[in-house]
């Protein structure tokens, strides 16, 4: 018994050392998950727990946007519809039907998923910018309908008095944090699966994907429904955590937040938007706590995004990842940037990495006066 336990422990340690600690990005991800879970043990500050819980809710929301926009290429400008559908449906279920919160959260996810399938169905034939601009319309249509029936929806004031999930603050925090970790992991696993690969193919070339026998409408609908259900669960968690749901959950601003978080963190990564939320949301809240900055919060937020983008146009996480990890020229596996040789196949990393930098590709076609002109079209 003791021998088998120590064997299991040793094997877990070997796995941890060989699969997680070898790569800085995986180490950081593990440390981050541990920190999120250990936070209530380390600190009892109600304000801090509240901010991190909200960060977790928005992390789910941003990651769900990335599955739809980053992987499937359906860049949605109306993602707040799914968040708002989850928030309003679970709040209404709680207020009107007295539904228990856990069921309400699942209902929020289901309603949002249905909304996602509907939007996806309506937008099946749209592409690129048309799709983005058309999806922008849906949360506003929903908002108009809500305002037209103020006695059910609460109008501009929204709904309030929704039951909170648990009585204790720590229990609420743990529910949100664990849901966030589970959903982000699930989204990442989906994006990394065969399904994610097919979405990738659809994003890169829909006609070619279709010609290769992929049922693209079905996969696009599935991407809409899955992404929307995650966003809906985030919205339902928000409604129960804030004990209410208002028109701000369907706001254009919230839709744009998803786009900003996603692109700031790095698209088509799932972890990128999560990192962006964990960096930007507490940062703006912290800045907002200073009275001098309080009213300029949005201004500072926009300035940070603008300046960071000038230096890291592909987003934060790809930039950082390129600094701390190097892909192997032969086996394409990544190694820590300070290693001299690839951790898998032992090829020298440094010398190989310097070759493309020393010989820039020739740029003759466009002439000297028009730098990179040919790469301007998307």
């Amino acid at each position, binding site marked *: 018994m003791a021998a088998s336990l120590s064997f299991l422990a040793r094997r877990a340690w070997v796995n941890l050392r060989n699969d997680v600690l070898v790569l800085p990005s995986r180490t950081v991800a593990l440390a981050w998950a541990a920190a999120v879970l250990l936070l209530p043990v380390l600190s009892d500050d109600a304000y801090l727990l509240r901010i991190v819980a909200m960060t977790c809710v928005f992390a789910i929301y941003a990651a769900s946007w990335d599955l739809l926009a980053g992987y499937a290429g359906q860049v949605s400008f109306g993602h707040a519809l799914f968040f708002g559908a989850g928030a309003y449906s679970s709040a209404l279920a709680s207020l009107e039907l007295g539904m228990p919160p856990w069921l309400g959260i699942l209902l929020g996810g289901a309603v949002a998923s249905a909304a996602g399938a509907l939007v996806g169905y309506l937008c099946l034939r749209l592409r690129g910018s*048309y799709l983005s601009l058309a999806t922008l319309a849906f949360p506003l249509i929903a*908002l108009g309908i809500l305002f037209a029936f103020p006695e059910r929806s609460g109008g501009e004031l929204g709904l309030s008095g929704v039951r909170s999930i648990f009585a204790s603050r720590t229990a609420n925090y743990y529910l949100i944090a664990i849901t966030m970790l589970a959903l982000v992991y699930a989204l990442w696993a989906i994006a990394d699966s065969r399904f994610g690969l097919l979405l990738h193919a659809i994003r890169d070339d829909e006609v070619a994907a279709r010609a290769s026998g992929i049922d693209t409408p079905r996969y696009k609908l599935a991407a809409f429904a899955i992404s929307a259900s995650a966003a809906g669960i985030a919205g339902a968690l928000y409604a129960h955590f804030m004990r209410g749901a208002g028109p701000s959950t369907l706001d254009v601003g919230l839709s744009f937040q998803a786009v900003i978080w996603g692109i700031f963190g790095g698209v088509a990564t799932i972890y990128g938007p999560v990192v962006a939320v964990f960096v930007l949301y507490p940062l703006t809240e912290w800045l907002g706590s200073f009275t001098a900055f309080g009213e*300029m919060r949005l201004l500072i937020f926009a300035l940070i995004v603008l300046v960071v*983008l000038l230096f890291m146009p*592909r987003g934060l996480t790809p930039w950082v990842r390129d600094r701390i990890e190097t892909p192997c020229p032969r086996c394409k596996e990544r190694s820590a940037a300070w290693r001299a040789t690839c951790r898998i196949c032992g090829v020298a990393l440094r010398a190989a990495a310097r070759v493309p930098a020393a010989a820039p590709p020739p740029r003759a076609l466009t002439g000297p*006066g028009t730098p990179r002109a040919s790469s301007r*079209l998307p």
Partner: protein
Amino acid sequence: MLQDIFITGLVNGGVYALLATGFSLIFGVARIVNVAHSAFYMLAAYCLYTLLTYTGMGMGFAALASVAAVTALSLACYRLFIEPVRQHESAVLIATIALGLIFQELMLRTFGGHYLGIPNALEGVVTFLGVSIPYQRLLILAIAAASLATVWFVLHRTRLGLAIRATANDLEVANLMGMDVRTVAMATMAISVALAAVAGVSVAPVFVVDPFMWLAPLVTVLAVVVLGGLGSLKGSLVGALIIGYVEAITVFLLPQGAFLKGAVALSIMVAVLLARPEGLYGVAFEEER
């Protein structure tokens, strides 16, 4: 009632056409979805307010100065924030969102969140078909028509217009034929923002000026452009009139119409897209896979 709908729809449609044409132009030439487009419209209204209140300039001169100042500002923003990230479409998108937010917050800081009023350029009303129309609304209509005619002239009768249309049609070939696509993009940006600024200064006396006045037209303009077809000027004009009239009809005829006007207009857009995914006059970008 009918006459009210007719006039309101026409005037709002004219304003939307000014905004949508500019938005569509810069999208067509540079593939930039400029979310900050209507923020420039807001800036022009504020600029006019400042010039009228603090310098005592005449209305016409102040309006021209506002348009020029906002256009210059947009070119500076384009060079500083948009051009460096032009290769990354998504970065351009959130750069323009961030710019819009920055302008909104700056105006909120400087002027506060309350509504500001600007006196009409022309006082008085004219009675036409039994409905009284303020001169200011007629002026908006005249300005919109004149600006759109000017844009049409520039696009179809000048060398610059030829270059703009060629670049919109095929950027790489235009570049190979010796057109400086960078200058063309800058010129298009200037024309596009100048149109937005003209719209801003002409509606400022009729609407109220506040830092959030750019959000409602932004959504409407996106609807107009998608409805008419991205990159098509004729589409923008027709789409603007459709949306302007749909909004006017909703407001005047439906109960709770003021809340529903956006929803109805956007539903029309979705309905058109279901039938014609590339909008009314849009070209399907089939080759741009």
